[in-house]
């Protein structure tokens, strides 16, 4: 969506396609950022008052004092389950409560006992229990070091940039006026009493009782306050907008040092490389949800969403920092500049060589408290699991939402929708969702339909449903101020709108003109909003209508930086405190509405543009209003990879680019890239020419058809990866280093990516490309081109000549990927279709994979209604075992084909099935036993495998394959293509939920 009025554009941009930077603040224009960034390292005024330390079983508290102003802070330290440490710092006695972010953590994180190892006047050493991990609290200046053995993993306030602007009374009103009226008189007084006043002031400054300060001193301090006011502590203006800042300065800041780290990632959303850059020579990375019109690439400007999570990685370890603060936040990154701080004597022996690389990070937020979760890994997957335990995992989406989405601003009317839908059938291109943007509504009144263009939405939805397809309609959070609009009247009468600083309903300019913004931070508002999605409230809606939340940063066309005024009020908090949470709440309330309308049965699908930590629980996100440019195609990779690292797996970019019009080549390349990214939706701006896949000539139509069909063949794999993401928090679309954490060559790769562990994708993102060079990771690995089945060794840069039809995708040797090759009109049409198993052998001639099946759309999988099987190939036997014997589900799908890549030609292939055989062969004692089957064991242990199924259940298991005397044996036909060593086993025909094994002899 375009964030600004057309008028604006014409005036501000004068024909250039780039962000108007002057609409958005630099650090210098954001007073707290400027103030905090001006602090010098190594001058920390904070001292830990060790005598105030209290240690209960799970919690350590300690007061910190700022020796400059004597304000005391309270430090809380927790050791959390799963190798995490939580550090909270708040004012000991704030004037009024400071905002602590609610609703982001899935629960109060469970703690584990802390114990004091040693203590003296310089500090305290605490044990973190695991693997000789300790926290060292140094008293003066205050700092925290987390060490393991001889290694410092992370240090806090090591550069002394902890800053906590305490809440204070505004001292201006009376004396300020006096100041201005009798300024000249003061000057005289000062001149006469200068030496005295300084003397007096210094004498009294140490007194905390300011009421006793004599006149002259008061004058002097008032003068100082006045100077600070100029710095924007109590009032701040940006362009024509002023921020009344009734609470004055309230920023918090803390620095972290990461010894041995050269690579940091995360803190989306930025249009930048996967590996974060140092910010010494420019602005810090900014986290402030903003509707940025025509965003620029490769810079640290804020975008639509914010996840304050950073990952640090080296070959030894991955760690993470989760800075739980929803206010405007800036993150500075520098490298090896502040690494030589003097460690306390307790740390001396752990200090490594001075050559050690180090990354220093500094977080600055405008308000709230310091609440930081330090995730200690040590592996990338541990980090995902640790972060998932805090904020939850990716919601498990309906299978259909992993198909292709056709969107445009706007499909004009029902006839347009019907004819686009028919166009897909005519050109034999599958799709699952067609989308309606804002023009479908009656005058941008969400939950309504344009009475002329969409006069009978249910007929339209039924027409789609008849083809097992779905629709998404947009519902934005800005509500037209119109007394004839039910939604507005209800929100107003219930007092659900965000208030302005003067207590009235906050109003701003957005698509409908004057609009109110519901206060989604209020639980009762969210409950009401959710109820608006019930079929009787949302007229014209049906169960195949889903929702899209746009503009939820929130976007306010006439607000500062195109968003809400920071002094707007949400209950007892300022918008300043909750800003980055607003979009998450909108997304959540909408998702809850979709769940509730089906009585809790159906899985929802909601797309959001704004997001925060935890948004993964509510649905999908996309990278906002990109442009039809090659660089925008390229940046979609690091943008989604960065989101995946911080839990948000369901990510995509507008295929084709939102603004401008793509060349057919760019469009085709974008489809080829998007088809291998999690959220696959084409979208286009209102002013662009139409670009449905068949509008660019038969050749391009064929290319686009082919790649969308490829997407559909991989849906079983995508689906099981999302199931995994839901269970474990592991990203679906993965940076290479996640799977190859010890190979530095992978650390900065962001022109290719993995889907799960087993597919490597190197999209063609250069105009007129004749070839690409893909890096195939893994010394031990082999990779198979999924199109030609050609085998390539790992740990090499492979040059691949490309044509317009090429999409370099490789399946990892050692993997088994289930696919459905019978592509139909939509994913639902393919539900009962058979699987083809692609078994890619590694150098040890083994492979493993999974098969996950459920109904594809309900929450019944939570009640164990699913099939989850593990597929193994070893010793020339391929077998399928149930890894969830407690689960029950039946499927009509069967196995129609097994394709073994890197195979040799067998004499015969024998399939053994056993009807209702219960395999379940594992126990913790590593014994192989028969679970109540009255059959004779024929074959013994075949395979040793480490199963990592449920996150809490990681046991080494011996897997036995049972062949049963009275089991059913049959010989299978097969083809062997010696030129590429591909064995295709014809029609084994067993049910996909069955136990079976297949022996190549």
């Amino acid at each position, binding site marked *: 969506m375009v964030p600004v009025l057309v008028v604006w554009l014409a005036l501000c941009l004068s024909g250039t396609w780039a962000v108007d930077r002057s609409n958005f603040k630099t650090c210098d224009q954001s007073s707290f950022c400027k103030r905090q960034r001006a602090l010098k390292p190594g001058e920390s005024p904070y001292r830990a008052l060790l005598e105030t330390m209290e240690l209960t079983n799970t919690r350590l508290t300690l007061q910190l004092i700022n020796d400059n102003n004597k304000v005391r802070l309270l430090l809380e330290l927790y050791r959390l389950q799963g190798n995490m440490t939580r550090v909270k710092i708040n004012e000991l006695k704030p004037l009024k409560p400071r905002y602590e972010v609610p609703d982001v953590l899935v629960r109060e994180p469970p703690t584990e006992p802390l114990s004091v190892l040693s203590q003296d006047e310089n500090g305290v050493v605490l044990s973190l229990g695991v693997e000789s991990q300790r926290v060292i609290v140094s008293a003066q200046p205050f700092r925290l070091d987390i060490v393991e053995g001889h290694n410092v993993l992370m240090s806090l306030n090591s550069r002394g940039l902890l800053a906590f602007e305490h809440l204070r009374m505004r001292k201006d009103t009376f004396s300020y006026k006096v100041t201005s009226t009798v300024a000249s008189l003061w000057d005289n007084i000062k001149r006469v009493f200068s030496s005295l006043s300084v003397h007096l002031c210094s004498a009294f400054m140490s007194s905390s009782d300011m009421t006793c300060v004599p006149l002259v001193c008061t004058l002097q301090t008032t003068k100082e306050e006045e100077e600070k006011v100029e710095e924007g502590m109590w009032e701040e203006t940006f362009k024509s907008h002023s921020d009344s800042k009734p609470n004055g300065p309230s920023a918090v800041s803390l620095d972290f040092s990461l010894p041995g780290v050269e690579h940091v990632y995360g803190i989306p959303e930025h249009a930048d490389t996967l590996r974060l850059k140092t910010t010494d020579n420019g602005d810090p990375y900014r986290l402030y949800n903003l509707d940025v019109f025509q965003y620029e690439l490769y810079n640290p400007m804020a975008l639509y969403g914010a996840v304050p999570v950073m990952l640090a990685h080296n070959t030894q370890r991955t760690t993470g920092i989760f800075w739980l603060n929803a206010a405007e936040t800036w993150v500075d990154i520098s490298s090896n500049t502040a690494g030589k701080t003097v460690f306390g004597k307790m740390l001396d022996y752990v200090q490594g060589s001075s050559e050690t690389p180090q990354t220093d990070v500094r977080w600055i937020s405008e308000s709230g408290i310091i609440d930081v979760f330090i995730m200690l890994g040590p592996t990338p997957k541990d980090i995902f699991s640790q972060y998932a335990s805090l904020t939850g995992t990716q919601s498990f989406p309906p299978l259909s939402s992993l198909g292709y989405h056709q969107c445009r601003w706007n499909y004009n009317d029902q006839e347009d929708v019907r004819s686009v839908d028919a166009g897909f059938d005519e050109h034999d291109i599958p799709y699952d969702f067609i989308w309606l943007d804002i023009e479908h509504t009656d005058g941008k009144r969400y939950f309504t339909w344009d009475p002329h263009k969409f006069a009978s939405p249910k007929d339209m939805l039924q027409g789609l449903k008849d083809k097992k397809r779905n629709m998404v309609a947009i519902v934005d959070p800005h509500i037209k101020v119109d007394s004839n609009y039910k939604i507005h009247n209800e929100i107003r009468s219930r007092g659900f709108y965000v208030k302005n600083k003067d207590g009235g309903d906050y109003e701003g300019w957005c698509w409908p003109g004057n609009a109110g913004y519901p206060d989604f931070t209020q639980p009762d508002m969210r409950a009401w909003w959710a109820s608006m999605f019930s079929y009787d409230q949302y007229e014209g809606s049906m169960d195949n209508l889903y929702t899209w939340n746009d503009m939820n940063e929130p976007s306010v066309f006439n607000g500062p930086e195109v968003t809400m005024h920071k002094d707007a009020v949400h209950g007892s908090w300022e918008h300043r405190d909750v800003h980055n949470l607003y979009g998450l709440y909108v997304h959540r309330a909408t998702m809850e509405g979709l769940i509730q309308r089906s009585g809790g049965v159906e899985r929802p699908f909601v797309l959001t543009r704004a997001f925060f930590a935890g948004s993964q629980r509510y649905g999908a996100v996309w990278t906002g209003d990109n442009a039809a440019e090659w660089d925008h195609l390229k940046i979609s990779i690091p943008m989604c990879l960065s989101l995946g690292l911080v839990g948000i797996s369901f990510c995509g970019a507008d295929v084709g680019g939102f603004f401008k019009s793509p060349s057919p080549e760019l469009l085709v390349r974008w489809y080829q890239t998007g088809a291998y990214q999690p959220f696959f939706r084409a979208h286009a701006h209102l002013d662009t020419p*139409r670009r449905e896949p068949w509008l660019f000539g038969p050749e391009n139509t064929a290319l686009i058809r082919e790649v969308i069909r490829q997407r559909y063949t991989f849906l079983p794999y995508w689906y099981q990866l999302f199931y995994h993401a839901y269970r474990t928090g592991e990203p679906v679309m993965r940076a290479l280093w996640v799977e190859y954490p010890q190979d530095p060559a992978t650390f900065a790769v962001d022109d290719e990516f993995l889907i799960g562990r087993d597919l490597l994708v190197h999209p063609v993102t250069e105009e007129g490309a004749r070839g690409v060079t893909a890096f195939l990771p893994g010394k031990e690995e082999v990779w198979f081109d999924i199109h030609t089945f050609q085998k390539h060794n790992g740990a090499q840069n492979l040059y691949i000549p490309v044509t317009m039809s090429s999409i370099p995708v490789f399946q990892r040797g050692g993997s088994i990927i289930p696919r459905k090759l019978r592509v139909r*009109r939509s994913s639902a049409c393919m539900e009962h279709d058979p699987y083809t198993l692609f078994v890619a052998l590694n150098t040890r001639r083994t492979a493993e994979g999974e098969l996950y099946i459920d109904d594809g759309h309900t929450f019944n999988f939570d009640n164990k209604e699913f099939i989850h099987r593990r597929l193994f190939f070893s010793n020339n036997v391929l077998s399928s075992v149930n890894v969830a014997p407690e689960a029950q589900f039946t499927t009509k799908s069967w196995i*129609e084909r097994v394709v073994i890549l890197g195979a040799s030609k067998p004499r015969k292939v024998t399939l053994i099935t056993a009807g209702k055989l219960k395999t379940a062969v594992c126990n913790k004692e590593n014994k192989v036993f028969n679970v109540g089957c009255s059959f004779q064991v024929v074959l013994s242990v075949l395979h040793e495998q480490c199963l990592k199924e449920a996150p809490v259940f990681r046991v080494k298991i011996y897997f036995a394959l049972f062949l049963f005397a009275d089991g059913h044996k049959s010989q299978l036909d097969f083809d062997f293509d010696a030129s590429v060593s591909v064995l295709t086993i014809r029609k084994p025909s067993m049910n996909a939920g069955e136990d079976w094994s297949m022996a190549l002899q």
Partner: protein
Amino acid sequence: MFWYLLLLWGGISAVEVQRPRGVPLSKRPFYEENKPFTCLDGSRTIPFDRINDDYCDCQDGSDEPGTAACPNGNFHCTNAGFRPTFIPSSHVNDGICDCCDATDEYNSGAECQNTCRELWRKEKESMQKLAEIAKEGFLLKQQLIQEAKRGLEEKQTKLGEVQNSKKDLETNVEALRTAKEAAEQPEKEAKERHLKAWEEQNAAIRMEKDKVRMAEVFIELDADGDGFVSVAELLSHSEMDPDSSDGSFTEAEAQELLGGVDKVNTAAFETIWSKIREKYVSESNTDGPAPVETPQEEVREPVSDNDSEPYPDDDIPEEEDEDEDEDEDEDMDDGDYKSPPVTRTDEKKDDSEEGAMPPYDQETQNLIDAAQKARNEFEEAERALREVDDQIRNLEKEISFDFGPSSEFAYLYSQCYELTTGEYVYRLCPFNRVSQKPKYGGSETNLGTWGKWAGPEGNVYSVMKYEQGTGCWQGPNRSTTVKLTCGKETVVTSTSEPSRCEYLMEFTSPAVCQEAPDLEVSDIHEEL
């Protein structure tokens, strides 16, 4: 006819022996029971039991005509009672009813009804309706063709006539030109005479006035009244400093003015007078640059006009309304009439100084009147000729215009058809332009001017293209595609904007109607 064929078809299927599911009758011979089957592309041969065994063996999909196993296969719907058809294999058993005889969903659990007869009935009804329309439309079309033919003939006749009358007019124009030129020569001479006499008279008067003034100035300069103007006396008039820039009028300079002598008498002053005439400022000066007062009242006129200027400078129209408003702005600019009145006052001022030329004497006036009459007659004749030229051009254009194979679209020429929607009134003036005007006020937007016939090959006259309309913000110029379908009425039935600034208009006209064809019959033929 069609029913007969259908019954025949029914009979055939009744006696039909087995053929694999999804195989059309025409291909049945390739699927010989219990004999090895060779894929239709010849790529391989497989046992007969692998036909329709739900596994794709042939690259061309020909072994699985009745299942969804092959990605590129086709399933044949017999559709008894309706038109047989092929559907992609991917539509077999996908839970969606595609064949009207429901044969594609034999194993999906979808409950499909056989709707072939119902479909046929509906199609027949609508076909009949269409056929009726086509029939009536076709009749109307014949009339249109006749009319066009008549119209064309009329126009050609008219063209002939006009071309003839043009010759007469041309002769006439030439004759009148000669007459005009003949009358203008004596007029010119008489006028010049009159002017010359008046100018001579004026010169005499001016000279007399100058002499009087010179005398007055001499007396004024001759401050001591000694009958001489001396250097000293001259020096009191610093405005006469020849190099006024240096600010000092020296004695030497004054003496030089006086021709190198110290003083001059009246006679000698005459030569000096010509040098100082322009500079001299009278001591009793009140009438110098004063006479501004009188014209001032006239100058006020445009000022008051300026006040009523409807668009003050600071009220710049918003960019938002870009294209519509731009036109209006230009109109307002055209109406800028600040300058003409100023020149008007200047002219008047000159007139008053020069004095009015005396009226022509009767003889001259007679010559002028005669010349004017000749001029008027000539211009009148020329205008008539121009009109005829226009007429010829228009006629020729219309005659040569592509109004379709039989000029059946000629009747649309210079007509306009409107359609009112929720917001706009759309106006199609065939072969001219398409426009859109907001229903509730606002200026008209050009959606394209006539471009070309743009239908597909073989049916070029089914689509009109109007191009180069008003430009879109950051987009193309507006354009409109008009799709013509057969109808009894000539009417715009719908408009839409499928893509930004690319409009689509549906337009019915009898001129598109074809003689009712037997489409359905030909389909059946193909199948059998």
